[in-house]
């Protein structure tokens, strides 16, 4: 397998401004365990040439464990639920829910992964919460210098990403 192309991007801002969006790859939800939030760990074939399989799979697996932690039903969540009910849910004016705390951790993790792993490969992970937890969007960027790959789906994404 040819090595993934190296992009001289050291931060995400550079990536966004200097590269052009070629396509977006979507990692769908995995509903085999019910309605809990899980993403498929199946590696999308479009990214074969861009990133090593294990890296992306690790990221998705870590995110899945984060979501599982957020939605875990155990002593802590029951305590929080009962306390909130007893205070007629007014307590959430001052306090964040456990889920929201985990979501913050997740967004920090995704930011870190983007900076360390994905931006150097010309990819960008979008936090699933920005897509309504439906998909994990991986934006694939092409260096502006190279001949633009066909903007096939970019008939739709053109308006959003082209600058």
């Amino acid at each position, binding site marked *: 397998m040819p090595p993934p192309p190296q992009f001289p991007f050291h931060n995400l801002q550079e990536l966004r401004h200097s590269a052009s969006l070629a396509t*977006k790859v*979507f990692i769908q*939800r995995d*509903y*085999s*365990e*019910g*309605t809990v939030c899980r993403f498929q760990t199946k590696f999308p074939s479009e990214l074969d040439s861009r990133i090593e399989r294990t890296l992306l799979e690790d990221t998705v697996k870590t995110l899945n464990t984060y979501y599982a932690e*957020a*939605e*875990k*039903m155990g002593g802590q*969540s*029951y305590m*929080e*639920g*009962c306390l*909130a*009910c007893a205070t*007629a*849910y*007014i307590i*959430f*004016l001052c306090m964040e*829910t*456990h*889920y*929201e705390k985990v*979501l913050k951790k997740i967004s920090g993790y995704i930011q870190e992964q983007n900076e360390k792993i994905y931006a150097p490969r010309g990819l960008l992970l979008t936090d699933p*919460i*920005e*897509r*309504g*937890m*439906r*998909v994990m*969007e991986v934006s694939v960027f092409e260096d502006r210098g190279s001949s633009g790959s*066909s903007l*096939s*789906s970019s*008939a*739709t*994404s*053109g*308006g*959003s*990403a082209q600058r």
Partner: protein
Amino acid sequence: MHLGLDEPVRECQYNQICTRNSSPMETLSHKKKRTPRRKWQIFPGRNRFYCNGRVMMARQTGVFYLTLVLIMVTSGLFFAFDCPFLASNLTPAIPVIGGVLFLFVLGMLLRASFSDPGVLPRATPDEAADLERQMDAANGSSGPGYRPPPRIREVVINGQTVKLKYCFTCKIFRPPRASHCSLCDNCVERFDHHCPWVGNCVGKRNYRFFYLFILSLSFLTIFIFAFVITHVILRSNRSGFLNALKDSPASVLEVVVCFFSVWSIVGLSGFHTYLISSNQTTNEDIKGSWSTKRAKNNYNPYSYGNVLTNCCAALCGPLHPSLIDRRGFIQPDTPQPLSHSNGSGLYPSTQNHTHMAAATPLLHSDPVMMGRAGPPPSGKTSLGGPCSSLAPSQPSLPSSMPGLGCAGDMLTLRDPDAHCHHHHFVSPEEMPSPLGPSSLVLPFAAHGGHLNPAQLYDPASQDSLHEDSVRGLVKLSSV
């Protein structure tokens, strides 16, 4: 975002902005220059937002105000006329308990009504296009054996096969237990039903508030009923029955209201207690999704097995955050979801226009046409005929459901012709989502499989709105 009760009361100016208003573009663009706009202002569903996006309700709120009035008037009369007597003759704990109950009821009602029930945001144009491509690829390839049509995905959950349906309005495959509410025009996660009394859908995020509301309202109703009767009896002992009624005329009204409410509210509470303990939604129960009448080995894959865990999960489980970020500011470079489902031309902002023109998937253009243009032209797909004949029929609710407080009223509240937007295409599952018994649940798959893509490329019969979409589609398909 925290949906506190105090926050909106303190600082809201009731800007009632109906997102479906055809606000002229000049006002919108004028506003855009001045203030950054928030996402609720371009929300595609049929919801109303108040207090700058903090409060979210359904479009029809008349019955909600009736609920509020009934509760407040009855309780007010109780506190004003019965409590003084009871406090002095029995115990002052009565008004205190009554007060606590009343505040709890009100709090839960407002929380259930004002919060996001778990609306799934619509797909961005990129996602929709990606899904369309996958479905086309699946449609085109032929293989031996049974394969579900591309608009249905099957997933095995806990040993039970569950079908995930594609929502034409939201352009997504609905997660399990989600359903599309035709009144609010949104897909809602763990959709229970649309409650007109609460003025909102009841879904994943506000089900516990709804349940606590009806439970506490049952207690309050029984409480008021019991103590008003006690009051009248005590007075009658002193001065005779007729004099007692003359001294406290409000008691008669309270007794009447409470008497009629008790049957429906207590019945509804009982029904929902049953649903919670078996981890089902009203939608699933009405459709009989997990009943053994459908299949011998049918069981509910979401149930945890025992009643206590099911109850804890429903009431004390983690509170999921809202997915629609109503109060976030619109970023100029983020993709906005497709916001029209019925071709009535909602163009909330200029950047959406290009998305919609280019990206309306081919599968949508025909059904929308059907809805608007009356009888579908012959030579169109088989989707049109049988579905349109089914659409107006009113389902009958199964008699097994007691206390039809909420569900019963949904039938009367459906005014199909009042809104022009109602003519958007609904699949048989989509339309009477809380109402449809199994007879209406068509094998939609059968129709989906008959779609002939060639028939949809008929630009001449599209109206101008869809000409753009078709051009965009042709572009898409030619790549």
